[in-house]
Structures are given as structure tokens and as C-alpha cells.
């Protein structure tokens, strides 16, 4: 009686082994490192590495290890304080233009573990320090802009069709077109509906002065516009975060209107906010080919009526002063493929006002070149003589120059791009510049690096203390069986860490609280079983029969009790945000692994100890 087949032992052994391997990275705490990577088309030079080395040596900052891989320099330090100082020194030494200096947590796991894809647990921002922003896209403005575009288009189409109207106005989220009578309202609606290609819903209202046609966006169009605005903002934010030099940023959509931005290790939250809050726009200008841009750049003598810009590679470009159209007139930009020229392309669409101006310009300038300028405006707070001054800083860059083949208006293509990747990038930039909706920060959670470390220490201490208290109690109260339960509890802890590491789920402080709680609750299954065994013995069953019946009878109770807790964990996950989700994940993993360890795990050991022999008394 009470013997397990070999395969069950094998399964338990295998799970324990895998658990130990994947939990083991926790024994190798990550190094605080600074990562230096070249920006743009730069490469990492020997000289730069030397400069960094000497500067760090001068400041007396000890380097633990320095390595280069894939054109990136990784410098490890002994602690977070040295890391912070060093990153500042490095940034000052090599500048922020050519290199991106980022704080990083570099794993120290041995190569054989890494080859098994065993990674340390991913720490949440409350443990490693950093900023969490929740940004909201201002959808009302996006919709209003869309409505304003329609306003111009409606005017145009009504004039073109010679339909008499009294006025067009934008009211909040809809448009009102006033007509003198029902007849013109009806033909007006027909003309507008045709122009809007099914994007609008209509209703009419009779007033004292005539008939008002109310046009609003269809639900599907509304969702489409919102998704577009959100996508635009995510793209822009991603570009800007890259500029901040963060090693593992998270930029994630949340719902239809919000974006999560997480920047681990960021110190200067003020700067982060300024960079994220920058606004971008576009300007389409004619390229001046009458004089040499290189000469103008060298001599500083800029020809009349032109302005000097730089392209993405830093080459000078001369553009005319007049702006043909601006970013807000671009309604969409998408990467595509042009069958005619057999090359990647970007397809652009303009709004009513924009297409009219573009048509006029291109008609007069066929064969000329047109350039697109990308402008980013940041608000930077600077300390001038002890006074904080908010300064507007503009960064301009020519992202594309193309020849005008023929006159065009509403939609056109930029072709002749080198690769699909380039087309994609250009489309992204064009969309970013056409930003339909501003974003603002609606939530911020910042944790400084020292507090993060303190949280880790506190969490670690409470897990250890809680664990030890439970171990002692179980050993005293249930003797041999208690020791077996303790083994299971230890394995349970290992499994939780292993699963968290494998899933790369984010460990947060509430998550650690979840681990502590699981330790306390995980013994429950064993308590249930053991109490049952004691009871069966009191009822006069033989030790072997008592073990068997105790495990058997407790099983359904354990399952019921755990499933209900699991329901609570699932709900918590579905409704919680950030750290709370971490708590829910740990709770769920803990419940499942504790079922395994405390039922199968303890049974296997109990069977090994008591199984298949004569037992007169159980130590329980």
C-alpha cells in the first residue's frame, strides 16, 4: 500500500529539476551597468572607449567589467550609486548628440544557464526604480480636427454642385449645415454623402429659418480615427523614448485612448516629461536648386528667400521660405509599393484645404523638387540666474526630397525610396508630424533607485522571515509530516520563482507580498490532508489506510477551495493595473504550484518513507 509508480517519481523529479534550473538565475544578481550605443550612423570608436575609461578613472569610479558587443559598450559597476555617477560622467564626456548613454541591468547568469534561456525575474519599476507614465490621447481634439477638415470639404462640394446653403459650422462632435429649405437640404445631403464615402451619418432638423442638416461620424469611422490617432502617438512616443536612452522601455497601448510608457532607471523625470510632451509637425517646402546648399552652409551666406536645413545625414539643404502645406493638412500616410516604378513608396492624402493648395503649387512647379521638413518642438526648463525659464526648442530636419512629376492634389505618392524599411520609416515620421491629437500625462508613478533597492530588501526579508516561521511551526506541529510539507513548501517557492522567470512576468512589491501570502496559504492543502489523517487514525484506521484515506478525502476539498481563490486572482488580474496585476499573477501561479507540490509532492515522499512496510505509528 501507499506506493507510487516510477513515472510519478520521474515527473516530480523532472519538475523539481526544471524548477531549480529556471529559478537559479535569482542567485546571480544583475549588475548595475551603463550602456553606450552610437546614435544614427556613428560607430563606436576605440578613442571613445579610451575617453570613457580615462574619465571614469579620473573620477575614481571603479569599473567592474567592460565589454563591447554589436557596436555597443557595456560597462558594469559594483552598485547603483557608482552607476548613476558614472552615467553622468560618461554623458558629459562623450556628449548626447553622437551617443546614447543608458542605464541598464546586465545579467550575470553563467553562459550555460543563458543557453537554456534561463533569465532572472523581470523586476517591476517599483523594485528597480524608474518612471511609469499613463498618457491619454486627446481624442476630442482629434475628432474636432476631422470635423474641421470636413467643414472645408463640404463647403467646396456645395459650391461646386451649386447647392445653396446658409452656413457650415462645427459643433462639438458634429457638423451643422444650414439650408433654406428641405429640397436643398436633401440634395446637399446627397452631395456630401457622396463626397464623404460613407463616413458620415446624417439627420435633419427643421428650424424657423429653414432646415439644418446634422452630420456626425459613423461609429466605425470614429473607432478608426481613434485607432489612427493612438497609433500615431505610439509611433511618436517610441521615437522620442529612443532619444531618452532607456535600455528597456515599454510603450504599450491601453484601451482605445491611452498609452503606457515605462522607463526603467530614468532619473531626470522632468526631462523625460519634456521630451515626451514635445509636439511635432511637418512643413512641405519647395527645394531651392538655383544655388548650392553646400556653399551656403560653408559661407553662411544664405540666398534671399531661402532657408538652410539639414537632412537626416546632416547634409545641408536649401528650401524656399514659403510653406506649401503644414502637417495638419496631411490626413494619412502609409507605406506601400509602386507598381510603375517598381519601388517602395509612401502614399499620402491631404485634406480639402491642403489638396487645393498642393494642386495650385504642383501645377506651377512640375519637374521641381519638394522637400518635407520634420519639426519637433520641446519645452525645456532652464536655470537662468536662479530663475527657471521655460524655453521653446525647435529641432528641424528634412526627411525627404522628391521631384514633382505631375500636378496632384488630394492624394499623391513619394516613390524611389531605397527599401521598404525606408518607406515605412518615412510614413511613420509623416504620420507623427501630422499628429492629429495631442497627448498628456494622466498618471505618473516614479520610484527612485534607492527606494527600489529598499523595496527589494524589505520584500526579501519578509519572504524569508515568513517562510522560516511557517517552517518551524509545521515541523513542530506535524513532526515528520511537517518536515515533508516543508520540503514541498520550499519546492513551491522554487517553482513560483521559476515560472515567474520563465514567463518573464513582472515582479512587483505587491507581487512579493503575493509570494509571502502564498507561502502562508500553500501549507493549507497539507494541513487539510494531515488533519484528515489524524482524524482517520482516531477513527481507528491503520496508519497505512489512514494515509491513503486522508489524501483521498481531502482532495476534493482542496480543489474546491483553491479554484475559488483562483477565481479571485483572475478577477484581480483582469481589473488591476500594473503592480496589482503582479500580485494576481503570483497568487495564481502560487495556487497552482502549491496544488502540485502539496498533493503529489508530499505524497511521493510520504510513500517513500512509509509506503510498503509495516508501520505501527505515524509521526504526525
Amino acid at each position, binding site marked *: 500500500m501507499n506506493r507510487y509508480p516510477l513515472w510519478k517519481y520521474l515527473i516530480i523529479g523532472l519538475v523539481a529539476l526544471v524548477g531549480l534550473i529556471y529559478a537559479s538565475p535569482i542567485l546571480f544578481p544583475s549588475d548595475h551597468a551603463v550602456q553606450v550605443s552610437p546614435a544614427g550612423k556613428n560607430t563606436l570608436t576605440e578613442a571613445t572607449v579610451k575617453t570613457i575609461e580615462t574619465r571614469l578613472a579620473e573620477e575614481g569610479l571603479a569599473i567592474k567589467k567592460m565589454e563591447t558587443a554589436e557596436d555597443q559598450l557595456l560597462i558594469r559597476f559594483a552598485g547603483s550609486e557608482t552607476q548613476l555617477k558614472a552615467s553622468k560622467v560618461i554623458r558629459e564626456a562623450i556628449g548626447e548628440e553622437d551617443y546614447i548613454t543608458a542605464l541598464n541591468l546586465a545579467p550575470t547568469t553563467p553562459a550555460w544557464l543563458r543557453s537554456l534561456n534561463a533569465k532572472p525575474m523581470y523586476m517591476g519599476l517599483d523594485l528597480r526604480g524608474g518612471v511609469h507614465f499613463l498618457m*491619454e490621447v*486627446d481624442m*476630442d*481634439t482629434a475628432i474636432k480636427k476631422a470635423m474641421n477638415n470636413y467643414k472645408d470639404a463640404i463647403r467646396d462640394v456645395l459650391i461646386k454642385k451649386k447647392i445653396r446653403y446658409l452656413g457650415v459650422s462645427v459643433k462639438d462632435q458634429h457638423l451643422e449645415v444650414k439650408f433654406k429649405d428641405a429640397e436643398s437640404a436633401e440634395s446637399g445631403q446627397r452631395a456630401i454623402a457622396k463626397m464623404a464615402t460613407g463616413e458620415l451619418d446624417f439627420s435633419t432638423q427643421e428650424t424657423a429659418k429653414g432646415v439644418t442638416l446634422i452630420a456626425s461620424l459613423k461609429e466605425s469611422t470614429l473607432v478608426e480615427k481613434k485607432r489612427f490617432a493612438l497609433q500615431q502617438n505610439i509611433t511618436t512616443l517610441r521615437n522620442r523614448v529612443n532619444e531618452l536612452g532607456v535600455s528597456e522601455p515599454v510603450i504599450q497601448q491601453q484601451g482605445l485612448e491611452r498609452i503606457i510608457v515605462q522607463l526603467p532607471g530614468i532619473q531626470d*523625470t522632468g526631462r523625460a*516629461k519634456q521630451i515626451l*510632451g514635445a509636439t511635432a509637425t511637418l512643413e512641405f517646402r519647395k527645394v531651392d536648386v538655383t544655388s548650392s546648399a553646400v556653399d551656403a552652409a560653408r559661407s553662411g551666406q544664405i540666398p534671399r528667400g531661402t532657408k538652410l536645413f539639414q537632412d537626416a545625414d546632416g547634409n545641408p539643404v536649401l528650401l524656399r521660405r514659403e510653406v506649401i502645406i503644414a502637417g495638419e493638412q496631411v490626413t494619412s500616410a502609409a507605406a506601400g509599393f509602386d507598381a510603375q516604378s517598381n519601388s517602395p513608396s509612401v502614399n499620402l492624402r491631404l485634406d480639402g484645404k491642403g489638396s487645393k493648395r498642393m494642386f495650385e503649387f504642383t501645377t506651377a512647379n512640375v519637374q521641381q523638387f519638394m522637400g518635407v521638413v520634420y519639426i519637433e518642438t520641446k519645452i525645456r*526648463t532652464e536655470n537662468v540666474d*536662479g530663475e527657471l525659464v521655460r524655453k521653446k526648442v525647435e529641432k528641424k530636419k528634412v526627411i525627404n526630397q522628391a521631384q514633382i512629376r505631375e500636378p496632384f492634389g488630394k492624394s499623391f505618392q513619394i516613390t524611389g525610396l531605397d527599401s521598404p524599411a525606408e518607406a515605412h520609416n518615412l510614413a511613420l515620421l509623416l504620420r507623427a508630424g501630422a499628429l492629429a491629437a495631442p497627448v*498628456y*500625462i*494622466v*498618471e*505618473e*508613478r*516614479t520610484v527612485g533607485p*534607492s*527606494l527600489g533597492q529598499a*523595496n527589494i530588501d*524589505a*520584500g526579501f526579508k*519578509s519572504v524569508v*522571515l*515568513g*517562510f522560516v516561521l*511557517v517552517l518551524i*511551526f*509545521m515541523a513542530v506541529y506535524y513532526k515528520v509530516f511537517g518536515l515533508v510539507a516543508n520540503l514541498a513548501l520550499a519546492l513551491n517557492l522554487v517553482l513560483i520563482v521559476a515560472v515567474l522567470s520563465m514567463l518573464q512576468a513582472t515582479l512587483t*512589491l*505587491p507581487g*512579493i*507580498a503575493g509570494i*509571502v*501570502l502564498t*507561502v*502562508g*496559504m500553500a501549507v*493549507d492543502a497539507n*494541513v487539510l490532508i494531515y*488533519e484528515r489523517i489524524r*482524524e482517520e487514525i*482516531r*477513527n481507528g484506521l491503520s496508519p497505512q489506510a489512514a494515509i491513503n484515506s486522508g489524501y483521498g478525502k481531502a482532495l476534493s*476539498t482542496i480543489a*474546491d*477551495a483553491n479554484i*475559488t*481563490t*483562483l*477565481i*479571485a486572482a483572475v*478577477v*484581480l488580474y*483582469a*481589473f488591476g*493595473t500594473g*503592480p*496589482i496585476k503582479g500580485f*494576481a499573477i503570483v*497568487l495564481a501561479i502560487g495556487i497552482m504550484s502549491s496544488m502540485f507540490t502539496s498533493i503529489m509532492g508530499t505524497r511521493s515522499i510520504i510513500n517513500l518513507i512509509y509506503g510498503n512496510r509495516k508501520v505501527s505509528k505515524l509521526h504526525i
Partner: protein
Amino acid sequence: MSKTIQVINFMGLRKLAVIFSALLILVSVVSLMVKGLELGVDFTGGTVMEMTYPGAVEPSDVRATLQDAGYEDFTVQHFGSIDKILVRMAPQEAETQKDLIAKDAKSDTKAQLSNNILDSLQAKTAGVTMDRVEFVGPQIGEELREKGGLAMLYALAGILIYVALRFEFRFSVGAIVALMHDVIITLGFFSITGLEFDLTVLAAILAIIGYSLNDTIVVYDRIRENFRILRKQEPEGVLNTSINNTLARTLVTSLTTLLVLVALFIFGGESVHAFSIAMIVGVLVGTYSSIYVASSSLLMLGVTKESLLPPEKEAEDADELADLP
């Protein structure tokens, strides 16, 4: 049967327990209505900043510095030690969606508030560092309040369904009564003591729902089993036996859970303080309620052994009866 252990007549005490529970709930509800909860920044919106000074600092000095800088509607207090300061700013006024759109620049300054405050304090005392910032827009706070309430309802609904499927409807009601009892009293505890109710406490409440249910289910499981074995006994006796059967387990599990919670309370640091207090209260109340409330409500709902026998068995019984002459 288990005559060897002493049987405590829990059900005999149930009238007393009902009065006691009713009293606790009454006090909690009154306090929740009159005083309400001290909602944290997660739910109200606003800004909380935790800062470390290079040396000891007086909250009154910080208060004066901030007042001089023109800030209003804030509180300053020590946090954990004498060189740490916690500043709370109430949500900045007039922040409806429309206002934000109208004044885009204003929303920018709001997010910048924490940086501006740090600048002001650093101007006065060099070396002040920011340990933590939580800025929650009022809308977000409102949403979290809504979501939190919904989360509790969904958890309760899910559990109601599961228990109804596994046991019987009356058990499900009994379990929910016990849960509501625990949640209301824990909320009442937070209301009366004026401890801050933040997101982690909400998580604790949901964990308590899970925990208290766990306890109740174990007792119910035993009741179901005993109804089948002790066919001659009255429901009250069956319930009593069941509670006594599971008593040791109930107490041991509560004890181990309390042990780790106390460890968390002592070492977990400020940010899990409220969480561990909520859990400790919840576990204590949950243990009590799974013994008294969950089972007494079963009796009040008129549970009998028939309500638990599987339908197939009933059909068989009916056949046997039909065979009698």
C-alpha cells in the same frame, strides 16, 4: 464516529454570534456612511511625493517653503524616518475633460507639478532627492474607483456561480453572506481607523474574498460529506460536527497565514503596510465568519440533507419506494 474529540457546540452559540456580527456590521456601515474611507491618491487623484532630505527635517519648514512658493491645498508629514518627507497635493481644480483640452499647457504643468515642487525644495535645501512620485489624474482615480467596485462584484458573482454549481444555491448564498460580512467589516475597520485605502488595500480585499471563501468551502465540503454519513442527525448537529471536524485545520491555516502576514507587516516596508493590515484583519474576520456566519446562514436558509443528495440518488430512492407493496 469521532467521539474522541471534544465537540464544541458552535451552533448553540449562533444567536450570540448573529448579534455580534450584526453589531460589527452596523458599526462598519454607519462609519462607512458617516465617515467614509480615507481614499488614497489612487482613487482621489492628486500627487504624492516622497522625498529624502540630507539630514533631519521639520515638516513645518517644508510647509512654509511650499507656501512661500505659492502652493495650496497640500499636507506635509514625516514618512518612516525624520529625514523623509511625504507631501500630498490635492488634485488641481477644474480638471474636466473640456478644461484639459481648452488649456493644453495647463495639463502640462500639472504633470510637471512634482518636478516644480522638487525644484522649489531643492532651491531651499540642496541635496533633497525624490524617492517616489505618484500622480494620478482625477479621471483615472474615478475610473479606478469604478473598476474596483466592479472587480469586487465580478469576483462575488464568479464565486456565487461556482459554489452554486458545486454545492447548492443555499450554500452559495451562505458563502456570499460570509464574504460580504468579511469585506464590510474590513472596510469598516479602515473607515474607523482612518487608515489610507489605496489600490493595494483593494487587492487585499479581493485576496480576502478568496481566502475567506477558501475557509468557508472547506467547512461546506465537510457539511456535505457529513449530511451523507450522519443521516440520522438533525442539520444543526451535522453542522456542529462538521465545524468541529475542520476546526483544527481552520485554525492552523489561519495561523500560518497570520505568521507570514505579520512578517510582511514588520519587514515589508511602508508600501505594503496597509496591505498587510487589511489582510490580517480580513483573515481574522474570515476565520470567525467561516465558523459562525457561513454555517449559521445555512441553518437560517433551511438547509437539509435532501438539498445535497445528488438527483440520481433521489431517483433511485423513489424507485425503491415505488417497489414497496
